């Protein structure tokens, strides 16, 4: 395929941290190249996620970036400097690397493993030790318990976490992470991902991240490169655009079922306009409630307490059997409640099982803000999609017309 979507298009302003030019690797004795003429720009401070089917060349690509595998041809440009034939040690010290097989040093304790790079950098013992504890804690492993163990005494996921901690040791400007969270349970993984994103928002490293989990890619990536066999780029774009405007069937297939549902992860409740619902307060009388209800198009009213927090759903039936109790003692407790920073996916999740098919949105103090119903979600999705499609169309046209330029 001669048309590899130009990686840098539309980002000419931000500075390119890693540029791969026509990078090719053919392993001796193999008929096909593992990586075939890959051209890719990675901007400073962004997380680029490589995803693609098993064996498509992700690991090979990563290893060529830090020259653990020498490319058969092509160039690697790091921060404007051609490093294809530079001393690889110096190169690598600027690049953190989490290897796919964890590759912990079996003869060193966990503490020593994590301390490797800080020690290399000549930090004093106290600082190293503090850093090790910090890193282990960050990957959710109790330093007191694990610091003195050897790799073989850890479970698979624990080993992987130590690998991540170790790579973070030196705070390198560029990180290559090859399926760093592949063997970790969802809770820990989620925590690590969030921790990572938090760190990233502070320090803005340049990160190349390999995963085979499209959800992780969507969560972590500023941009995602979806690769086909031979590391050929099927699409290199933002998560939104990949989900809403997949470039071709390969990408569509790769995203898999549930693209729309995944798309919901990218927007938050605060981004859409909330609906309204009829409410009364606990201070109101049953009669007020009744009259609100009868003038409402819904079958229940939402009862708020005096601070405005939703406390009860009350139906006509409930009102009928009120027996002199106050409004907050009848009906049922609202369950589908989210805050504005929840994703639309969270909202939908609540919605799906919600009484009255509606999710209640409250602020951080728990005060009622509005509701989301399915139609609102539907509309939000549909408008996102049409924006993305329009964008893609206009860009494609722009790209087409710039085809003649130097490649």
């Amino acid at each position, binding site marked *: 395929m001669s048309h590899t979507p130009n990686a840098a298009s539309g980002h000419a302003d931000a500075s390119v941290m890693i540029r791969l030019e026509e990078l090719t690797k053919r*392993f001796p004795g193999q008929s096909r190249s593992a990586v075939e003429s890959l051209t890719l720009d990675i901007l400073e401070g962004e997380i680029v996620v490589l995803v693609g089917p098993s064996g498509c060349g992700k690991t090979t690509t990563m290893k060529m970036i830090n020259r653990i*595998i*020498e*490319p058969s041809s092509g160039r690697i440009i790091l921060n404007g400097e*051609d490093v*294809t*034939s530079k*001393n*690889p040690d110096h190169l690598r010290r600027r690049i953190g690397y989490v290897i796919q097989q964890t590759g912990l040093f079996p003869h060193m304790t966990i503490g020593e493993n994590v301390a490797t790079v800080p020690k290399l950098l000549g930090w004093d013992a106290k600082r190293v030790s503090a850093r090790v504890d910090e890193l282990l804690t960050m990957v959710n492993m109790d330093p007191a318990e694990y610091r003195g163990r050897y790799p073989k005494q850890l479970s698979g996921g624990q080993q992987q976490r130590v690998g991540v901690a170790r790579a973070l040791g030196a705070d390198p400007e560029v990180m290559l992470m090859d399926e760093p969270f592949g063997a970790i349970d969802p809770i820990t993984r989620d925590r690590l991902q969030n921790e990572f994103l938090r760190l990233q928002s502070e320090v803005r490293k340049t990160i190349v991240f390999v995963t085979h989990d499209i959800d992780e890619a969507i969560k972590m990536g500023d941009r995602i490169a979806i690769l086909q066999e031979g590391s050929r780029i099927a699409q290199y774009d933002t998560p939104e655009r990949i989900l809403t405007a997949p470039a071709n069937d390969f990408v569509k297939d790769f995203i898999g079922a549930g693209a729309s549902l995944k798309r919901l992860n990218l927007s938050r409740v605060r981004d859409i306009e909330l609906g309204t619902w009829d409410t009364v307060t606990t201070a109101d009388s049953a009669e007020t409630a009744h009259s609100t209800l009868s003038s409402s198009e819904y079958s229940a009213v939402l009862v708020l307490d005096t601070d405005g927090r939703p406390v009860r759903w009350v139906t006509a039936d409930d009102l009928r059997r009120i027996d002199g109790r106050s409004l907050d003692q009848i009906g049922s407790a609202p369950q589908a409640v989210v805050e504005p920073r929840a994703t639309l996916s969270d909202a939908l999740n609540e919605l799906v099982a919600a009484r009255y098919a509606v999710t209640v949105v409250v602020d951080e103090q728990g005060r009622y803000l509005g509701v989301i119903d399915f139609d609102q979600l539907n509309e939000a999705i549909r408008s996102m999609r049409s924006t993305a499609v329009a964008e893609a169309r206009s860009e494609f046209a722009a790209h087409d017309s710039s085809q003649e330029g130097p490649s």
Partner: protein
Amino acid sequence: MSAPATAASTTDAEVVQTQSAPPRRSWPGYLTMPLILGLVCLGMFLYVQSRELDSIEARSLNARTILTALQGHVMLTAVSTLVTLVISVPLGVLLTRSFTRVIRPYIIGVLTVLQAVPTIAILVLLAVAFLFLGFQAAIVGLVLYAIIPVLLNTMVGLEQVDENVMEAGRGMGFSRWQVLTKLEVPLAVPVILAGVRTALVINVGTATLVTYIDAGGLGDIIVAGLSTNRILVQLIGAALTAVLALLVDYIAGIAEDLLRPKGL
């Protein structure tokens, strides 16, 4: 290929290569050693031919004597190595099994002790104390000397095998025997063979001593030169020994190339 890749620092490129393709020697690579050894022999032959030999030198430096000595030496080396292997590899295997943990230090201790005694002393003691002479006594001496390198390397080699691989094997229902023969031993081959090659070279060298107990070999020639102070005879004997050792090591190298698991 474009310039950048070739310009890469050579040591690093080599590492990468050894990792990606199992190193096999090329044909010229295989031929170098025999060629060199052949040339050395030819050189020796021509030199001896060009010299006037006195009767003492002539008695050692003639085709019949040399061939007999060579043949004897090869026999000594071959048999002692074979016996060494037959003893030490299984012993190494046994001594790495958990049920031998208790006796392990003692057996190794005894063998170490025997290894350390100068072969000449062992030979003398055999001859004096047991009036045990000749080929068989020589084999005993040589074997005692060569056991340890093979044994220790066998043990380390086996201990180094990746636990995960053995676990996978056991998980698939391999019996102990199958884990041993299909996984442990093949994976330990490089280290075991290192021991064997060391032992072989040591054996070829040490076998020159058994001339003192009527066991023949190239030692006959060397000692003849030594005792009559005929440097040429000594040199030829020593050179032949070295050539033989290198040849044997070379053959063992080929065996290693064949036996060394290709995936490693």
